[in-house]
């Protein structure tokens, strides 16, 4: 089978994860990367990537490339995806698809017009624990799921960052609503909304309460209440306020209850897993996601989650922002 030729645009936090994984794919070769950081490009070349560009437009000119992974800050998605689609490259675009629904629609439309595949990067879809939970819902073993609780809390942009053991500042775009489209709700909520849509179908109604613990111009935590057309009601909690990571889905069915939790490995076990397996179960979904994307291209299959999925997630998020409610003190 022909190996897919991949390019990677953006070597930030998630881009580096894609870099490590794509170099080990059986069905694809990563042949080019682009980033504005010379150091990141040098590191990628040391790992074996042949071509490195400081401008992604140069990378997109490469006729050998079948597809690109776009791992850029959200405000750059539209321009980059547009150029990639016009250059007939299939696209794996990191979530959220865009800053707003208008941009998302444009991205979906451009991909369709140019007949390129568009997949949105939602690694939880490729997480075995989360897939098993979906299996339980679909098999009926839980009965009807009346209530779902989905929680995703982590340090968000406040994650302490290092480059070669030196602390590095948080990129400024994180704190600019114009560039991100929102805060914790669009960043982490997009994961949870996409996952719950995969479980329960379309959202009929959604409301939110937004929190501003860190005095930012964008919310650092949010609670959403969503009603699905299938009848399930979900509470979605997301936040950037905690030093501790938690990603948990709890389903309360008419017959049984089920819980799935994505737990990051402890430092020692992560180190052992990296030495023995070159990855950890926690990071494995990102590799599976890439492998699936390459297979979709090789076999001419429409990938899922698609651009339309990303658009619907963003429609739900915009609706949640519009329908945000304030909680006042009891008088």
């Amino acid at each position, binding site marked *: 089978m022909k190996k897919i030729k991949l390019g990677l645009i953006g070597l930030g936090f998630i881009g580096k994860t894609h870099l490590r994984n794509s170099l080990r794919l059986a069905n694809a070769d990563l042949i080019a990367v682009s980033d504005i950081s010379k150091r990141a490009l040098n590191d990628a070349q040391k790992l074996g990537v042949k071509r490195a560009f400081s401008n992604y437009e140069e990378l997109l000119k490469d006729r050998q490339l079948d597809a690109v992974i776009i791992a850029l800050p959200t405000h750059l998605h539209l321009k980059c995806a547009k150029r990639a689609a016009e250059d007939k490259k299939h696209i794996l675009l990191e979530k959220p698809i865009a800053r707003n629904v208008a941009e998302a629609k444009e991205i979906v439309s451009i991909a369709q017009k140019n007949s390129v595949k568009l997949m949105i990067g939602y690694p939880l879809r490729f997480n075995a624990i989360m897939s098993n939970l979906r299996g339980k819902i679909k098999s009926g073993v839980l009965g009807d799921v009346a209530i779902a609780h989905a929680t995703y809390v982590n340090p968000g942009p*406040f994650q*302490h*960052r*290092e480059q070669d*053991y*030196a*602390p*590095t*500042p*948080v990129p400024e775009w994180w*704190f600019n609503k114009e560039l991100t489209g929102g805060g914790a709700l669009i960043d982490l909520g997009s994961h949870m909304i996409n996952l719950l849509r995969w479980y329960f179908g379309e959202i009929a109604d959604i409301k939110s309460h937004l929190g501003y*613990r*860190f*005095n*930012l111009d964008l919310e650092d935590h949010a609670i959403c209440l969503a009603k699905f057309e299938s009848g399930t009601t979900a509470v979605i909690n997301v936040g950037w*306020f905690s*030093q501790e990571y938690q990603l948990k889905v709890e389903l309360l069915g008419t017959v049984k209850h089920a819980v799935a939790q994505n737990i990051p490995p402890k*430092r*020692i076990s*992560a*180190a052992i*897993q*990296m*030495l023995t397996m070159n990855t*950890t179960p926690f*990071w494995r979904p990102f590799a599976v996601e890439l492998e699936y994307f390459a297979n979709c291209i090789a076999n001419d299959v429409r990938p899922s989650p698609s651009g339309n999925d990303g658009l619907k997630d963003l429609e739900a998020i915009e609706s949640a922002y519009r329908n945000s409610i304030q909680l006042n003190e009891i008088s």
Partner: protein
Amino acid sequence: MSIVSLSKIKKADMKSAIIKSLNLIGYQFSRDIQRIVIKPNMCYYWDHSTGQTTDPEFTGALIDILRDNVSSETEISIVESDASAMKCKHAFKFLGYEKLAQKYNLRLVNLSEEKSDPVKVPAGDQSFHLMVPRIIQKADLRINVTKIKYSLEKIKITCALKNIYGCNPYPKKFRYHSKLNQAIVAINKAMKFDLCLVDGNIVAGSQPRKLGLVMASKDPVAIDSAAATIAGVRPNTIGYIGLARQEGLGDTNFVTKGESLDYFKERFPRKDAKKKIMSQAYNLVALLKLGKKLGLE
């Protein structure tokens, strides 16, 4: 021998506990003071509930006391500088100091953007070319409002002396980490603070804990020695404390006034053996630069 006072915060009344601590060391504010500089601990964007940064409510209680004791014309500035990972403009906002500044009519000053003068400062076997911000030079009263924390670095704990390290306007402070003990002492020699207060309401030991402690001293070496003792670390094993004493910044011998030091020592969340081993292992991994290979960064 220097005096270190310890008092307990009762019923969340920080102001009374600070007043008690100041009275115990016999501290009196002069009404002639024109300019006050306060340096809280804002090492990163973690809020005060983590025990890592000074609670703005604690700083607010101190400002209440200052407003009661000095002229209403006195200018009070909260100072901090950019660091390798932390930007002042964000820290002031995220940690609640912008709101505090509005409430109390304070100046928030990023020392990295202030006019500074160069000095050459020896400390131990090293010599440092530092910049001293003029706002610190010109202040009539400099107050160090710090935290007690375990440190990931080899310095074991951080308190008053380490907090002044944050007054160095040069943002890439990580550059000094290979000679951290000497750098801490040099910066304290270049910028001497008049009063040290410890916001020990929440401390960051092996985990955060509500300790309800306020400490005060005019001597940063003494207050650090007392803080180390509370945290279960022998002061003479901490390089910068010994060097600060040698360089004349203060005394490692101290007497306490107020609450018993043992009361807080018993309650401080100490590192257990497992955490100590993990900490050593992490330092070793960093030393051998194995972090990337092992997926730790």
